[in-house]
């Protein structure tokens, strides 16, 4: 049993935001496949259709996506969240976004009826104008949004960080000051791809966010730095495909890992990661999974 911000997880793998998280049914499916918890698609104050396609391409070594935060808004999503809560048997974390403190608060309060186990504040999406990272690269904004949501709801609040800043620790510290119960890192890394046959940027939004294998080293460094400076738990995300990746992330300082792009490989990824972690802990004389969290910091 892993406990993070008061939430009990059967295993430390968590479905990342924006992956099969738009409907209650798909969240339930992922939970049944073995995720220790699931995070919903980021939900905002107004319905959004997202960017035009192409919205995601497979690069082989990772993915580029610019979905544009498509979501039905919180009034419509409430029922989906309730389904996830009632049927998944794992903690369900509501990812939310907004352009202002008030919007964040509206969405959080709007979803409270469905009793999410925690909120994850998406202040880090790199390709939605006025939302996400444009908020999340400003430590003051991150702090005040965190304070506002913490005040408004009685649930743990996680803050999801963008790596597209000069120093992620400054943003992490702002979240901590604001009362965040945990930080989650990383969201995608700004990137783009161009079709040389036509000269067109491939994504409908022209640019987007890089995820998958390519960002694991970046995520590890962010988690490592955050762990060195913060007192709250860190949830590691970015390029986790295998139990080895998960162990690596935990050794850098993550108390749990989120899995996004690796869902492409198949939903078995959750059970295969969590059973791999279990074996690793047993075979290496660690007492429990918490023993490995942050140990890279002690290896000098």
């Amino acid at each position, binding site marked *: 049993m892993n406990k993070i911000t008061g939430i009990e997880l059967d295993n430390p793998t968590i479905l990342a935001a*924006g*992956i*099969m*998280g*738009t*409907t*209650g*049914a*798909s*969240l*339930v*499916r*992922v939970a049944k496949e073995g995720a220790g918890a699931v995070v919903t*698609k980021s939900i905002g104050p107004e*319905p*959004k*259709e*997202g960017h*035009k*396609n*192409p*919205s*995601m*391409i*497979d*690069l*082989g070594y990772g*993915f580029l*996506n610019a*979905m544009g935060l*498509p*979501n*039905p*808004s919180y009034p*419509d*999503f409430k029922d*989906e969240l309730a389904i996830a809560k009632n049927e998944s048997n794992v903690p369900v974390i509501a990812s939310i976004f907004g352009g202002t403190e008030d919007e964040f608060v509206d969405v959080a309060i709007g979803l409270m009826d469905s009793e999410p186990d925690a909120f994850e504040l998406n202040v880090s999406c790199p390709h939605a104008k006025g939302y996400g990272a444009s908020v999340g690269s400003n430590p003051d904004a991150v702090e005040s949004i965190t304070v506002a949501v913490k005040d408004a709801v009685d649930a743990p609040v996680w803050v999801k960080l963008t790596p597209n800043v000069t120093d992620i620790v400054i943003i992490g510290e702002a979240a901590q000051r604001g009362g965040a119960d945990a930080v989650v890192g990383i969201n995608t890394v700004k990137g783009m*791809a161009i*079709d040389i*046959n*036509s000269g*067109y940027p*491939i994504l*409908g939004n022209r640019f987007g966010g890089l995820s998958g294998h390519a960002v694991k080293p970046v995520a590890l460094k962010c988690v490592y730095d955050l762990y060195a400076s913060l007192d709250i738990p860190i949830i590691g995300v970015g390029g986790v495909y295998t139990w080895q990746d998960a162990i690596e992330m935990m050794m850098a300082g993550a108390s749990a890992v989120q899995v*996004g*792009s690796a*869902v*492409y490989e198949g939903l078995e990824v959750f059970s295969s990661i969590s059973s791999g972690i279990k074996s690793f802990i047993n075979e290496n004389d660690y007492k429990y999974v918490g023993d490995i969290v942050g140990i890279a910091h002690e290896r000098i």
Partner: protein
Amino acid sequence: MYPIDVKIIEIIKETPSTRTFVFDRSFNEAVAGQFVMVWIRGVDEIPMTLSGKNSITVQKVGDATEKLFMLKEGDHLGIRGPFGNGFTLPGRDEKILLIAGGVGAAPLAPLAEYASSIGVCMTTILGARNADELLFVDRFTPCGELHLTTDDGSAHRCGFVTDVLADTDTAAYDRIYTCGPEVMMKCVFGMLEKENSVGKTEFSLHRYFKCGIGVCGACCMDRKGLRVCRDGPVFNGLELVDSEFGNYMRGPGGNKELF
């Protein structure tokens, strides 16, 4: 992978509302029922079934398809895929039934041609709004028995594919395949359920696709959370029992849109 650039080498006006775009690039590994993401640069990228190894057949319904219709031979498209699961191909000794409505004939025509090439015995029920809109009559005709219906009776039998199906002994077939408007397929489903034939029937579904590769979840169906782009678009009927199929789908934002 990046979209593959293809040149349109031929445009065939199939019916007043549908055109086939033939590429200079064949997707020989594709199985009938698989789809590609078709990128009309500067406009949108939309899912289309491969109506042949190197072609798509498009019905004009909105923005992107309208832009597609403005393209000329020699113009280029970007293609990702083929993606998803195609139809389970019939064995040599099986008897099969195809039920196609409108542009739903697109994935079934290559299936029919494949089946015919290995000598499979087949019956096709092909329906459309009116005589002009009957798609791929020429491709189905040489493959086996063909029943045509039109909603307005402008040719052949007046009525729906389901009317022909009602007169058909589905027990005589080893496999049934269908593609068409979801309301049509829902009726088919209902009839086959009564005859206990759902388990041998494959349905080719449409949902709103974003990623097209099984990650984003835009195309997930209730209540199992099946991804149409990855777990489908072809589903065995049993997978659809107790699902949203025929009732609603999701819009681009994940909102429910009733049929």
